[in-house]
């Protein structure tokens, strides 16, 4: 400890004015009554920190009824809490979820810009047309008359429509 007390800032060759300022501050006398104030403060501080609160004698945790009451209170609180949670929880309804088709990233790093793929339209079912079964008739007279009537009918209609006066 006695080795070197040559640390004084003014001891070097380049002694300048700033060292005197620092030394003056370092030599400042302590204010009067500092020791008393510090001792009082330390005692107050230590006393304040070390204080232990006295537990009320009537509520000492050693007594049996106190223990039972505490246990009952704990049970009540736990059971009440559990019931409260149970009564508030609602049953889950079946979720109606429509699953969206999974988007598959296009190869090559290009996206499909959100376009949805739709399946090709399928050809509708072909309903066969019911064929009416014609009754088979024997004899040649009737069809021939019908054909003749049809031809005449059409000719008559055409004439009457175009030249009704000339027919008279």
């Amino acid at each position, binding site marked *: *400890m006695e080795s070197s007390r040559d*640390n004084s*800032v003014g001891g070097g060759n380049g002694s300048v*004015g700033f060292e005197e300022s620092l030394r003056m*501050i*370092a030599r400042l006398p302590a204010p009067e009554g500092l020791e008393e104030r*510090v*001792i009082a403060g*330390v005692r107050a*501080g230590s006393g304040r920190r070390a204080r232990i609160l006295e537990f009320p004698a009537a509520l000492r945790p050693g007594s049996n009824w106190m223990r039972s009451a505490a246990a009952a209170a704990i049970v009540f609180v736990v059971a009440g809490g559990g019931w409260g949670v149970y009564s508030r929880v609602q049953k889950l309804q079946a979720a109606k979820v429509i699953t969206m088709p999974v988007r598959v990233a296009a190869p090559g790093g290009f996206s499909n810009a959100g376009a949805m793929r739709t399946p090709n339209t399928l050809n509708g079912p072909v309903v066969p047309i019911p064929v009416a079964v014609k009754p088979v008739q024997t004899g040649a007279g009737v069809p021939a008359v019908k054909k003749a009537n049809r031809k005449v009918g059409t000719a008559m209609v055409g004439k009457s429509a175009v030249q009704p006066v000339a027919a008279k």
Partner: protein
Amino acid sequence: MDGDSKQRCGRASPHRKCPLRAEEETLAALVSEYAGTLYRVSFSVLRNAADAEDAVQEAFLRVLKHRDTLDEVRDRRVWLIRIVWNIVLDRKRRAKTRPETDDVAELARVLPAEGLSAEDRAAAAQHHAQVLACVETLPAKEREVLMLSAFEELSSVEIAQVLGITESSVRSRLFRARNLMAGLLGRVRQ
């Protein structure tokens, strides 16, 4: 306090010394011996009398907290300075930057001014505040060594112990700090 300690040592036999009372006596002895030194160290950093006193008080509270290890301490003075040094650096870090006008007013109040007129006193306080403002601009390592070196009661070995560095580091930092201060003050004067 006497009543307090009597209350706490109520069951101790009258022939044996109460350990609490012994602790308090040790603490009182430490306070009366080192409170002045610790106050000066605190004031050199905080530059406020009330803050410095608070720091000293906190240092002794820490001593009381670690009273079990008090016997293991070799050099109590350096140990105490180290404690208060850490406290004041911590407080300084947390506190906002003080305006220079506060420093000037505080220095004018506390610095000795025998045989000085009011004007000279104000000018001296202004000069000291300017010096301290330059000290504040130094790098932390150099600043700490420079401030501790101003205490004539601290050797370079003790400064090294307080800062937890080697003595050669103290010397090199002090050298750098002096050069930097000379440059800074030269610039200010120009």
